[in-house]
C-alpha cells in the first residue's frame, strides 16, 4: 500500500450514469488482488473533503505502463465530481487496500453479481481464467443495458438475469442462483460463492449460503475516512457470537471489504 499519483487515461460514460475510469499508476503501485480497493482523491480541489473507496474492476500492465480500472455509478457528491474529471487530470490514490477474494483450491467458484457490484467480480473472473480455473458467473441487473462487461467474461459459464426480462432469466440473480443450485451440479463441499452488489442482495445470498452451509464471501461497500484501519469509521456488525465475539466491529477497510458473508449481521449494516 502506498500513496501514489495517478492520471486519468479515460473516464467514459458507458451507460447513463455509469462510468469506466482508467487511471495510470506508477510502478511503485503494487499489483492488486481482485476484491482489493483504492482510496481515491476524486478531485484536485479540497472539496469533497474525503477520499472515496473504489473496488478495482481491473489492473492493466502493458510493458512498463500500469493502470487501474474503476467502474462506478454517479450516486452522490464524490462520484459526481469524479465524473467531471477530464483525460489527463492528475489525482492521487492510496492502495491497493484491504483483503480480496480468497478462493479455496479444488472448489468451483460461483460468482454472483448484482448491478455495478459486478466490478470486482470481473477482475476476479479474469484472474480465475489466467489460472485456468473454470467458474460459474451469475450476473443480474435491472435491464440488459446494465449488464456491464458481460461480453468480456471468458473461461467460465455465464448466466444472466434481468428484472425486466430484457435478457436472460426474468427475475433476480438470487433466484437464478437457487435455480442453478437445484440443478444439482454442485454441493457445499465442491463449490463456494463470491458475491458483490447491493447489500440487500448480499444479505439474501448470504442467507441462502448460510442455510445450505456453502462457503460465501461478499465484497462490502460503505463510507470510509482513513481506509487504513486507523479511524475505525467503517465498522462491520457481526452476528452475535460470530468470529468468537459478537461485540466486536471489524473495520471494513482492513478486515474487508471482502468478508465471510455468513458472519455479517446484514440487518445492522447500512
Amino acid at each position, binding site marked *: *500500500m*502506498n*500513496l501514489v499519483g495517478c492520471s486519468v487515461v479515460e473516464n467514459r460514460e458507458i451507460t447513463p450514469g455509469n462510468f469506466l475510469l482508467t487511471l495510470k499508476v506508477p510502478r511503485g503501485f503494487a499489483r492488486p488482488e481482485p476484491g482489493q480497493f483504492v482510496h481515491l*482523491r476524486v478531485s484536485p480541489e*479540497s*472539496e*469533497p*473533503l*474525503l*477520499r472515496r473507496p473504489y473496488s478495482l474492476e481491473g489492473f492493466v500492465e502493458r510493458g512498463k505502463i500500469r493502470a487501474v480500472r474503476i467502474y462506478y455509478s454517479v450516486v452522490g*457528491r*464524490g462520484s459526481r465530481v469524479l465524473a467531471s474529471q477530464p483525460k489527463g487530470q492528475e489525482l492521487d490514490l*492510496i492502495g491497493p487496500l484491504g483483503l480480496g477474494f480468497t478462493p479455496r483450491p479444488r472448489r468451483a467458484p460461483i460468482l454472483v453479481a448484482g448491478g455495478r457490484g459486478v466490478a470486482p467480480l470481473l477482475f476476479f473472473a479474469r484472474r480465475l481464467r489466467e489460472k485456468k480455473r473454470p467458474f460459474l458467473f451469475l450476473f443480474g441487473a435491472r435491464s440488459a443495458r446494465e449488464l456491464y462487461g458481460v461480453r468480456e467474461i471468458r473461461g467460465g459459464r455465464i448466466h444472466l438475469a434481468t428484472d425486466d426480462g430484457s435478457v436472460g432469466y426474468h427475475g433476480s440473480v438470487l433466484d437464478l442462483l437457487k435455480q442453478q443450485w437445484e440443478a444439482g451440479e454442485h454441493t457445499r463441499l465442491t463449490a463456494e460463492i463470491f458475491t458483490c452488489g447491493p447489500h440487500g442482495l448480499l444479505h439474501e445470498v448470504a442467507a441462502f449460503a448460510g442455510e445450505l452451509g456453502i462457503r460465501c464471501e461478499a465484497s462490502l461497500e*460503505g*463510507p*470510509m*475516512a*482513513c*481506509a*487504513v*484501519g*486507523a*479511524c*475505525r*469509521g*467503517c*465498522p*462491520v*456488525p457481526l452476528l452475535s457470537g460470530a468470529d468468537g465475539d459478537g*461485540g*466486536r*466491529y471489524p473495520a471494513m477497510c482492513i478486515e474487508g471489504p471482502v468478508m465471510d458473508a455468513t458472519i455479517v449481521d446484514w440487518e*445492522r*449494516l*447500512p
Partner: protein
Amino acid sequence: MTPSPSLTVRVGSLTLRNPVLVASGIIGYGIEYERLVDLSAIGGIVTKTVTRHARAGNPPPRVVETPAGMLNSIGIENPGLEGFLELKVPILRELPCAVIVSVEGEDVREFCELVEGVSGSGVAHAIEVNISCPNVGPHGLRYSTDADMAREVMSAIRPLTRLPLIAKLTPNVTRIAEIAVACESCGADAVSLVNTFVGMAVDSRTRKPILGTVVGGLSGPAIKPLALAKVWEVVQAVDVPVIGMGGITHPRDAIEFLLVGSTAVQVGTALFSNPELAEACVAEIEAYARRAEVPSVADLIGALDVPAERGMIRAGKIL
C-alpha cells in the same frame, strides 16, 4: 543564507522538535500510517484515546461527509487500558516521534487508573486528558462543560504523574476560557482545543438521521474559523501553552493557529485526504519563519497583529 529557524517548542517539560502533531483518533497508534506519514519529520502523534475498559464503539454509520466537514460518531473503539499496555505500547515504543497518549475515564477513579497505567508504561512523552469526547454517551461532555468537574479530574490526576498533562477541551460551551483556567489552576501543563463540535446530519428522503448515534462530532475545514476564535479566547486567559486544532486543511492554516497563540498545532480530518499534510505544515512553518526572518518559531506564537484596543477577550467577554 540565513541560518535555519529553530522549530522546537516546549509543552511543559516536553520539548517537541517542531510544533506539528497529529490529533487523537486520526492516526491510530502511528503504525497504521507507517507507509503514508513520515513520523520522523513531525513533532509527534496523539494516540487514539484509551479508556479504562475495552470499547467496541458505536453502531454504523459512524462517518458522513458534510459540506467542508465530516461528522463522526466512532465512540472511542479501543482495546482498553490492559489491551493498550499489552498490544499498543510495544508499537508506540518504536515510533520516531513524540508519543502523547490520550486517555478518557468514565469517572475520576478511571481517569486516575488510566494516568497511572499510561505513566507507568514509560512510553508516553505526555498525556492528553480527553475530557471532551462527544461520542461516549451521556457522561461524554460532563468533565469539560463544567469547570468544577474539570477541576476535580485534573486535581485528582495531577499528583499521579510527572508527565506533562494536556487537557483537551470541548468547544461546546459558552465560555471555554473558564474551563481552560480551571484546568490550568489544577496543574494542567497545557490545554488543547478544539475537540469536535456537536453536529447532526439528516436524510430527508428516508426521514432518518444519517449517523447511527443520531448526533456526532463535526470536524474539517468548516470548523476552522470557530476553532481559531476558541483558541484566541483561551490564549488570552491562560499562561500555559495552548495546542490549537480544528480544520487545518492547508499548511497555511497551521500558521494561522500559531499566530493566534498556539504553541503547537494538531492536524486531524484533512490528513485522511492528504496524508502528507502534517509534514507539509512543518515545511510551511519553517519557510514562513525564514521569510519573516525570525530565529525561532517561538517568535511567531501569538504574533497576530491586533490593534491594541480591539479583540481582547477574557472568559468569553469582550473587554
